[in-house]
């Protein structure tokens, strides 16, 4: 049973990603149950919920990162701009160029800062010459708010940056491929408060050009950066709505219990 169905249908013309009756099984485990969710364009959607509730699983369905996991089975309909993500004809490589991802732990390649950002554009053949590639790298670093800090050491190792800088480098790397959607899996959980504030600020700026889905354990963060919030519990989508409404006037007792800190 999904409560989301009973909520007023959001304006689906705005929906960038839609999920209809999405189920995920890991071998015997039913990890995600009958999820219906619309993710709107140029908004930040926060996925919250206690550990193991399926929010990361849902996130990884959107760019099919679950394909890498043995015994993982996804059913239901998941679309990106109306294209079925799990259609046989969809090329996963193309899909992941359209749906970027930022991970929990900063994971820059053990290469130079420049090569980290340039890797995506290179494999997708986005630049015709070195000049274009330079421009993509510079713009991406600029938009990730990192250029000022690293412009003198572009050829130094990306792994030599601080944790917060590494995470912004990963964001720069993701946006260099010009994706439509950026998935963020607890991007600030390994960062200190100052670095977190910077990343959150960046997320807010990126909303202008990208659709962002962020998984977070911090309800304050969800409240700060998102326009819409979806609450997951035990693999089910319990409630989804405008962030303000979820945090001030939750409809479901579970949501209320979670945001007031009674469990989770």
């Amino acid at each position, binding site marked *: 049973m999904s409560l989301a169905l009973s909520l007023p249908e959001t304006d689906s013309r705005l929906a960038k990603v839609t999920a209809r009756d999405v189920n995920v099984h890991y071998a015997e485990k039913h990890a995600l149950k009958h999820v219906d969710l619309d993710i709107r364009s140029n908004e930040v959607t926060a996925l919250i919920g206690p550990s193991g509730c399926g929010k990361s699983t849902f996130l990884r369905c959107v760019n099919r990162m679950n394909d890498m996991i043995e015994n993982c089975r996804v059913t239901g309909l998941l679309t990106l701009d109306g294209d079925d993500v799990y259609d046989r004809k969809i090329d996963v490589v193309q899909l992941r160029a359209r749906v970027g991802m930022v*991970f929990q732990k900063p994971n820059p390649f*053990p290469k130079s800062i420049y090569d980290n950002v340039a*890797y995506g554009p290179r494999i997708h053949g986005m630049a015709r010459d070195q000049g274009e590639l330079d421009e993509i790298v510079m713009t991406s670093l600029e938009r990730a708010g990192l250029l000022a800090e690293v412009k003198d050491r572009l050829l130094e190792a990306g792994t030599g940056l601080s944790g917060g800088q590494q995470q912004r480098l990963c964001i720069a790397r993701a946006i260099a491929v010009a994706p439509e959607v950026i998935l963020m899996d607890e991007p600030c959980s390994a960062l200190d408060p100052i670095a977190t504030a910077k990343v959150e600020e960046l997320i807010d700026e990126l909303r202008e050009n990208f659709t962002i889905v962020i998984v977070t354990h911090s309800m304050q963060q969800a409240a700060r950066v998102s326009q819409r919030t979806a609450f997951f519990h035990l693999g089910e989508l319990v409630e989804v709505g405008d962030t303000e409404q979820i945090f001030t006037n939750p409809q479901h007792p579970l949501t209320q219990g979670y945001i007031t800190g009674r469990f989770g």
Partner: protein
Amino acid sequence: MTEMVEKSVARTATDTAAARLKRRYAAERRFKAYGIVAIALALGFLATLLITVFSNGATAFVQTEMRLDVTFDASEMGLGDDRSPDALAGANYLAVVKNAIYARFPEVEGRSARRELAAMLSNGADITLRDLVQDDPSVIGTTRPVWMIASDDVDMAIKGHIPRTPGTDGARLSDQQLGWLEALEQSGAVELKFNTLLFTTGDSREPELAGLWGAIVGSFFSLSITLMVCFPLGVATAVYLEEFAPKNRWTDLIEVNINNLAAVPSVVFGLLGLAIFLNFFGMPRSAPLVGGLVLALISLPTIIIAGRAALKAVPPSIREAAMGLGASRLQVVTDHVLPLAMPGILTGTILGMAHALGETAPLLMIGMVAFIVDIPGSPFDPAAVLPVQVYLWADSPERAFVERTSAAIIVLLFFLAAMNLAAILLRKKFERRW
């Protein structure tokens, strides 16, 4: 009252805690002591081995030579006026050698005495003269002092490996020969010189002429073949099994079998090589080509296992990062995983090659134990390899081969150490942190 009881309880508690702590530290010290004893024992054995080998083998790197005044007489050499390279190569240098030593001891007469005298020089002494003349034909017709190789018995006597007291058990030189040697030594005509033949010639029945170069070249060809076959195959297998293969019963079965292959006695691989490469495909016997292929079969499991471990050690976050950017599985492997795993793979490969370098038994099966004098010119020529050369020399009765066996072991150990050093350097060079 209660207070006292509490105090004593507290004290006993601390006492037992202190005793327990003491036992714990004692256990730790004992454990450390066991470790140190074990390491000391291992080092002791290693030191014994190295000292034995080096003390036996060190003298093989020098060789006794004798200086004699040699008269290059064209008629004795059967040359006439012909100075063409063919004529120079075919000239009779043995006569010149014999004349030289007869001239040194003109008082010696009679055939048997003269034969004994000539036997003090190596059968290969004429080769020295031939090389000299071929380098510079103008020496013909002159008389000049030349250092020539002594026979192995003289060599052993000079080095003190066989007694020099006449009539002693094991003295292989006659009283007369010992006397001549004494005379030569007193005139400064006997010297120990660096044994270049050891590093320039192939095997020989005469210890003083036997060299390792043939075996070194044979080992080099064999290992080149091994590397060319097992590195690409091993890396491809490791990458496929680790990155692409589905995890099912078949891949499990393959994995178990690869692990088992690593434990199969190497002589079995030799029989396999004999049956398949020699008998079925009809490849040449005793050739480094076949030796290399057999050694490749032996090293392959090692390289696959090391390669898989290295690939497994690459953090999954790197794979995820590349996947998330839209890299294909192959791009993830070639651009990120493989470069990061390379140090580990290279280390495994070099250790596998070092193992292959020291392998003997399988090569005996495919005929590499033959007595081969020529230096192999290609992997298709018959050849010996270093460990087989050690085996062959260890089997030879002459006293001089004892020290040469040790010398061959030293050379083999040197190559092994060099390869291990290369493994360390490569790992250092390619190691990257993440």
